[in-house]
């Protein structure tokens, strides 16, 4: 089975039997979906090496999220005196490391993890109605 098929199958059903973890991990990294896969499989019992890789991927995603939200907050503070609505296009999702291969699928998925936390969504971080990001 190709890496892409493995990845799609694993994202659709995170309990699916995986024979070739190396191929799955490689495909997930190529599509920048390793974080999504790690979260999807969080409740599952995994081989120790995979569990460690996925824990690191989740920590990495959390750190990227913190950084992206911090940048958005800095932009909000800098623009606040202007009194104009501020729109974050696709959230702050477009902050992937430049050396990894970006893909349309990854961009589409990554909008989901950049949603602001509840305490922040009530603030004028974004001009769109709350919850629509």
């Amino acid at each position: 089975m190709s890496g892409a098929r493995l990845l799609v199958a694993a994202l659709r059903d995170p309990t699916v039997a995986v024979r070739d973890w190396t191929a799955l991990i490689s495909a997930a990294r190529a599509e920048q979906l390793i974080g999504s896969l790690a979260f999807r499989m969080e409740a599952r019992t995994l081989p120790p090496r995979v569990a460690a890789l996925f824990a690191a991927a989740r920590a990495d995603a959390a750190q990227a999220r913190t950084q992206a939200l911090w940048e958005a907050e800095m932009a909000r503070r800098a623009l606040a005196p202007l009194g104009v609505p501020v729109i974050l296009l696709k959230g702050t999702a477009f902050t992937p490391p430049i050396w990894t291969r970006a893909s349309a699928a990854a961009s589409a998925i990554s909008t989901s993890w950049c949603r602001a936390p509840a305490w922040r969504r009530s603030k004028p971080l974004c001009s769109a109605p709350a919850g629509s990001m």
Partner: protein
Amino acid sequence: MRHSLSLQIGPVAFRIGSAWRAPLDALAALYAGYPTPADGICDFTVRLEPDKPWRRLIRPSVAIRGDYVLPDAAPLSLAHGLLAAEMGMNLQMALGQKTYLLLHAASVEKDGRALILTGESGAGKSTLAALLGERGWRLMGDEFALLDMDNGLLLPFPRAISLKNGAIGVMEAEAAPERFGPRLIGTPKGDIRHLRPNADALARMGEGAKPALILFPRFGEAPAVRSVGAAEVFMRLTQASTNYVTLGRRGFDALTRLIATNPALAIDYPDTATAIGLIEDFRQELAA
């Protein structure tokens, strides 16, 4: 991929795929005695592919690809395929390693105490680590040191040692010929020859060690030893780390604990004998 090879190096497993057989044959010979991953799973995949499809056969050129890629990296000639595999593994670690704090440093261990040697390219860390590895120390790695952020232990990553130019002759006088890879002439970094760490380093590749001393060696200067303050050590080690920033607070906590609990010295040395002498002195002081 047409050809494939898996290697376990310290805590990290690699799968190296190649469109050609020759680079993997060279790799298998150099890494003779290394285990394959016991669970059959690899942390990283490296792929050696033709830059363009026809480049597999016509004037073959090897593009270094894998889980993590540098988009504008120049391909290497097939004659340097072994170097491509090595660079591919380095690249995965530099861009993709998120489990351990990764320091661009050599490390050696004796009596349970690990030394971290770091510095710019040309400072001599590879050569010193290789020499110490033949003289009673355990070589843990010549390129990357892995710090376990949970317990502060340094983990071995005993890849083949990458000897460049003058260092090749120094080590040819020390180690048995069968431990060397082919001499790669005219690479982007000059001449390169790889050296397999000795049997002790391989047998203990799963065994971490407590850091005891951080050294900043500098080759080509009159002998001098200077204590380095915590702030400078911190700055230098953040520069030597490939993943310090992305690890966030865990990386900061691990690095500051490493610095707070270990002395750091900058040593200048005119020749390797002087450096080895200084390091042996430090070891005796640490043991006292």
